[in-house]
């Protein structure tokens, strides 16, 4: 409801609402991006890019669903792009277990609490495709059908990625508990 209202205001040119949208969703989207990338610098860039793109095309923008879900999907897409660019420097899963991936470095503009670090570290062990589905379904509360549509894949594929991802997370989290 509120999202729709914001969208309507934006259409009318009440651009200050952009700031409201940013304030409202900044932390939520940063958490999406950090959970997906395990890298706060990349997450910051992704959220920045999404808001800039959103603002730049506001006059042509027509929202048909939830703005929150839309922005979350945009962030997921952007994170994927940025990570692909970094592919050459990608950290292997084995390295990921021992290297704190840019979550807490001096001078960073964003700091994560312990829960987010734990979450991001666990998700970093999953393939990107499974991570996306889990984050969009659990955190963004998007239904499998909506995720499938936004990613351009079948619902069964989405469900499969979710199932495999959750199964793997279970073993990761259980092993952490045993430690």
């Amino acid at each position, binding site marked *: 409801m509120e999202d729709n209202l914001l969208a309507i205001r934006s259409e*009318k*040119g*009440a*651009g*200050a*609402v*952009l*700031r*409201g949208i940013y304030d409202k969703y*900044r*932390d939520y989207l*940063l*958490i999406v991006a*950090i959970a997906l990338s395990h890298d706060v610098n990349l997450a910051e860039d992704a959220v*920045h*890019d*999404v*808001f*800039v*793109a*959103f*603002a*730049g*095309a*506001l006059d*042509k*923008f027509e929202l048909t669903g939830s703005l929150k879900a*839309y922005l979350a*999907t*945009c962030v997921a*897409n*952007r994170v994927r*792009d940025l990570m692909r660019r970094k592919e050459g420097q990608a950290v292997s899963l084995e390295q990921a277990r021992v290297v704190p991936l840019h979550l*807490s*470095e*001096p*001078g*960073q*503009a*964003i*700091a*994560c*609490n*312990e*829960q*987010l*670090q*734990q*979450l991001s570290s*666990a998700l970093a062990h999953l393939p990107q495709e499974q991570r996306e589905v*889990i984050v969009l379904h*659990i*955190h963004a509360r998007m239904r499998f059908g909506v995720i499938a549509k*936004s990613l*351009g894949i079948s619902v069964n594929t989405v469900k499969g990625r979710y199932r495999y991802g*959750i*199964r793997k*997370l*279970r073993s990761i*989290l259980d092993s952490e508990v045993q430690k």
Partner: protein
Amino acid sequence: MRSAKKIRKLFAESRVTVRPEADERISRDALTAAEESGEIKLTLRGVKGWRTIMKSRIAKLAAAAVIIIVVIVGIYQRGDRIEVTSVAFADVLERIRIARTVSYTVTVEKEGEQPVTMHHMLLEPSRVRVEASDGAITIVDTYQGKSITLRPAEKKAYVMSSSIAPKYILNAYQEIKEDLLKKFPDGSEESIGEGEIDGRKVVGFLVKYNSTEVIVWADADRGVPVQIESVGAFRSEASQDEEGSTTKVTLSNLVLGEELEDSLFSLTPPDGYSIEQVSTPTSPTQEQMMRVLSATIMLRLAKACLGYAQAHGGQWPDTLRTAIQYGIEDETLVNLTDPELELGCIYIKPARTDPRLVLLYQAYDKWPEGGINVSFVDCHTTVIRNEATFKEHLEFTLSQRE
């Protein structure tokens, strides 16, 4: 599914702490880019197509400029063109949030004391003019870290420069405004119907914050706030009083977004004035300004410490400088109300997360007449005027240490 539940819980408890610089960066870069950029062409083709948009830094910055331009245009459109048929509290708050200039007359009525009236003018992001009832005029420019108090009757100008780097106090008033707005989230208000102020039809909203009741009166047609009344302690986090005595504060003649002449905020003494350079505040207004600024910085320091503790499993930093990546740098440790002091404020590493514990307090040699700023573990920052009261807090805090 157990792990899904745990993941859901981790998401729900996940928090990020974002330094103000991160938010400011886009605006700053955008303004620079706006001067350099030409035509901006961006397209958004739905969820899947948006990825083609961002190809270069210039494109990003130019697009960011659009945010600023659209926001600025939006301010004027909202103020002058858009008709508001029924005023919503969210609209009233939004008008406060987006205002780049604010002026109002503030009247403070405290039990057993004479009412005090001042006129404030605020030109964001950094300039403030306060006209006191005794004729003194104080102008503060937080960007330059300077202030001047003019006493027209004596033709004297007291010029004060702060030793703190301007970048740390640039948006001090913006932060105060944001703090105020946080206390009045949309949905927390009760409509109290219509009224009339100076012949103007207004609608009122009642907001309760702790033990304070605030009434925001807004123009019934346009949604512009025209008067704010409070009984209790309607002040910013950075300046609220600890004594809890009943105080009525009224902001009347509230005007948002009017054009304010630059000359009103000039830091140059008028011709014929004798000039005195001072290192400490020379007027109650100047002292109050510096105290609020100081409290704002302490609030930031406290939040940085809290951010550190949140990111380190509840372990607070050993020293203020330990929390450097969370917003603390040497310049923020200066005591604005007494810059001569080597140490700006004292940090006490909390034994536990208990809001009754003192986290930071303003250093002092001799107890200042106006009291000192104190931040507690929950980050609430307040001025404590009574030394005995402060010592009670301090002794309790120290008694809780291992």
